[in-house]
């Protein structure tokens, strides 16, 4: 090897040693001889070689320092911008732009990550690696530099370099093997086939990305292509389709046993409307037909909802038009409550009355509920006071139960209909209770069993007295208020 190497350019000279100590001793001699472009090669990091060779400390630590600080900065700014500014996540009213404690973990991790990148890549960059072509590798003996031998090298570029002198110096240090290193003249270009393979790989790897990019900007009338079905894909079936999920293969399922559709309750139309429909059909067959259609056959939900049950004319029509008023009068209302009047029914009626009716009509039915009181206080301009239920025109002889039921169901004047809120049976229960309420104001003492009359009379006297006192107190208070108002 050394024979034909004479023709090639000399890179330097190296000597081999078999122990750390002899290497260090040789290094010191070479350093003291004034050589500067030197290097030692060892299978492990030899401690003390830096002073023996005169190598300066590395600047490497600054790279991870800067990289780490950059990481902290990037992480904090990223979190603040993403969660605080660009898309604020506001949770429980906590600070969201600068929630430092919550941002610390990610900031720490990114700091460590970038600092590690700095140390790792910085080290390779400063070392000039990867470098696959190295003149040192031309001597097979140098393979032992990674096994158990130590090498000292002096570069031909060193000012004091002189092949014979260096060879002599190495021999003096007790080296058993000294050789000249020549420049590596093997072609440095990457082989053509590797370049072609690499180019092909890069080319093919772009194809999927290009396809995805093209698909994203292309309109298509076909459904989106899913490898895995997302939740926006619903395997719902149409009415007449088949399915394997059920034994009968029908996608449209029959009603669950016990299902009741609208109008299938089996209640009579009289019960639902408060009108004697048989008689109505004799008097006004179109209207009766309309009633039947509305209650028994809702053709279309939207339409039915919008129209509402037209059993009776709406409140305003009733109030304004004579014609409809006459309709109200001529309608063959049910005279009697179709339910059997029992104590339970009256209790139910009372309960429902106190929930729904008493707010306006008052618990005693005199038309002075809380809403009315408040409306009077604030002197609401368009307030139509609720009717007292004790008026003569509302008694059963003039206002049949069916009509009262219809009023509760469909409303009158400003009063809205309650058919949506109160069940049919409960509306009839309210009718029964209202009758009882009316009765309570007009009943004679004779209706009370003889043995309780005395008790009731006493109670009545006491209550009348209290009421009179209250009324007196109220009047005085009002007078005082007026006097004060007059003074001021």
């Amino acid at each position, binding site marked *: 090897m050394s024979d034909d190497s004479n023709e090639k350019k000399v890179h330097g000279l190296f000597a081999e040693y078999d122990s750390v100590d002899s290497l260090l001793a040789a290094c010191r001699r070479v350093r003291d001889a004034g050589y500067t472009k030197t290097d030692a090669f*060892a299978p*492990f990091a030899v401690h003390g070689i830096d002073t023996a060779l005169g190598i300066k400390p590395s600047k490497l630590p600054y790279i991870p320092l800067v990289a780490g600080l950059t990481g902290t900065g990037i992480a904090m700014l990223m979190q603040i911008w993403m969660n605080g500014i660009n898309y604020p996540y506001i949770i429980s009213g906590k600070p969201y732009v600068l929630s430092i404690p919550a941002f610390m*973990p990610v900031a720490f991790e990114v700091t460590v990550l970038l600092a590690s990148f700095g140390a790792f890549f910085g080290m390779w960059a400063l070392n000039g690696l990867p470098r696959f072509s190295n003149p040192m590798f031309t001597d097979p003996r140098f393979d032992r530099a*990674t*096994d*158990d031998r130590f090498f000292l090298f002096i570069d031909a570029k060193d000012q004091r370099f002189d092949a014979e002198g260096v060879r002599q110096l190495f021999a003096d240090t007790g080296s058993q093997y000294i050789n000249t290193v020549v420049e590596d003249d093997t072609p440095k270009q990457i082989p053509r086939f590797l370049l072609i393979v690499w180019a092909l790989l890069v080319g093919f790897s772009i194809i999927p990305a290009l396809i995805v990019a093209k698909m994203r900007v292309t309109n298509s009338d076909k459904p989106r292509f899913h490898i895995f079905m997302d939740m926006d894909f619903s395997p719902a079936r149409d009415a007449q389709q088949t399915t394997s999920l059920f034994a009968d293969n029908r996608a449209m399922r029959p009603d669950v046993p016990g299902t009741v559709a609208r109008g299938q309750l089996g209640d009579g139309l009289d019960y639902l409307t408060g009108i004697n429909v048989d008689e109505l059909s004799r008097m006004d067959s179109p209207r009766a037909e309309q009633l039947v259609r509305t209650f028994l056959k809702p053709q279309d939900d939207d339409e039915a909802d919008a129209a509402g049950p037209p059993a009776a004319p709406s409140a305003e029509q009733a109030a304004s038009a004579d014609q409809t008023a006459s309709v109200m009068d001529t309608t063959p209302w049910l005279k009697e409550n179709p339910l059997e009047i029992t104590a339970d029914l009256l209790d139910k009626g009372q309960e429902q009355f106190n929930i729904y009716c008493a707010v306006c009509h008052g618990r005693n039915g005199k038309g002075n509920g809380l809403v009315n009181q408040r409306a009077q206080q604030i002197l609401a301009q368009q307030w139509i006071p609720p009717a007292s239920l004790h008026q003569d025109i509302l008694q059963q002889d003039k206002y049949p139960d069916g009509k009262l039921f219809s009023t509760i169901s469909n409303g009158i004047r400003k009063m809205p209909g309650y058919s949506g809120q109160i069940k049919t049976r409960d509306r009839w229960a309210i009718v029964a209770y209202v009758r009882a309420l009316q009765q309570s104001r007009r009943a004679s003492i004779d209706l009370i069993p003889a043995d309780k009359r005395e008790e009731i009379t006493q109670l009545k006297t006491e209550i009348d007295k209290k009421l009179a006192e209250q009324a007196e107190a109220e009047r005085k208070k009002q007078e005082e208020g007026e006097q004060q108002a007059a003074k001021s």
Partner: protein
Amino acid sequence: MSLAIPQGLDNTVEQPGERAPLVLGDTTYHDITESVCRVAERAPSKGWIIGFLISFALLQWLGLCILYLFYEGVGVWGNRSPIFWGWPIVNFVFWVGIGHAGTLISAILFLFRQEWRTSINRAAEAMTIFAVICAATFPGIHVGRAWLAFWLAPYPSLNLWMWPQFRSPLLWDVFAVSTYGTVSLLFWYMGMVPDLATFRDRSKNKYRRMAYGLLSLGWSGSSRHWMRYEKAYAILAALAAPLVLSVHTIVSFDFAVSQVPGWHTTIFPPYFVAGAIFSGFAMVLTLMVPARSMLNLEKLITIRHLDNMCKIILATGSIVGLAYSTEFFIAWYGQVDAEIFAFVNRAFGPYWWAYWIMVTCNVISPQLFWFKKCRTTPWIIVVISIFVNIGMWFERFVIVCTSLSRDYLPSAWAYFTPTWVDWSMLIGSFGLFFTLFLLFCRLMPVINMAETKSTLAKQYHMAHNDEH
């Protein structure tokens, strides 16, 4: 050039004024190269082939189960309301914990100049990386639609322009585990470069030489390179040391930052880190004790190494035991009904069996390491290490399942029952781990030759000084 250390020397005995040798026998630099390279150069042994085939089959099974999961949905697991985390998260925490010993050995023991780490750090670091790969698999598939797992990255989702929620421990977890995986990989690879250069220089085969040549980046052993390399290694170790502590701390935040009784405790971070180191060392021992005899590395991985690791297991196992009792104390001391219930339920509720398996394996079994006989007998070490691994898996199971199964609403209470997919994935993850580890044993330097040689050089140096 050799150093005569009697073959049968017991290097676990401390001699005053002397450092116990860490490389045994009449070993030279070249012997170290030989014994490590031989592992990768000779034809694989029968044991390796059988082991590899079994683990590779398990890995295939894991892959099939994951495909089945993707096709069918997460219902194939036993995760049911209210135990939505189930085994995937148990396995995740288990595997992440395993990884910690590797970084601890390579970084923290390096910073403390514990030279006995040199012959075990490579395998332990490899173990870290493979354990992190196993760990990362589970949350990846637990998200349900794993093909959208990239939504975890800080990237504005295509249609909503929303960013991830940076105040969630689950996102911290993504950053912690991925940083940990990356830094461990850098650390591991950087440590291997000089040894890969040794492999390259010993390769007879052209393609083998080319492959190792590419991997070793043209490493020549120049002392300037070595100096920067050592510096970079020390910096990486200094960065990895707090990192490894942060990772399991953040994993414990997944639990501790929530308000679930039994999870919402400040003790979790240190307790999780100790548990991670504990389980990691157990896994290192489970792997290294059989490996050192199968690969004939007894002179490099000596009884003293095993002894030291057993001591760490004893220490961390006792910390974990202390943490268990502290949890109970705080539950009583805090006087919060839900907390008291959570812990009483843990020990005496429907999962009592899991709790007591955990205590037996984690707290009681390592106490045997008080006896030197147990610390220096390889088969006892392996048995106890396997117990510790089982116990640490159960610890995560107990934490995840007992707290979740007792929801705030008693009507929602349930009992976790794993399905065959749960079992397959747990076993399959071991297939993944061992496949990677066995490949590593065949293809990469299992022991850090350069550092071991430098330890040997110090031993020479001391012996040399003694003569004079």
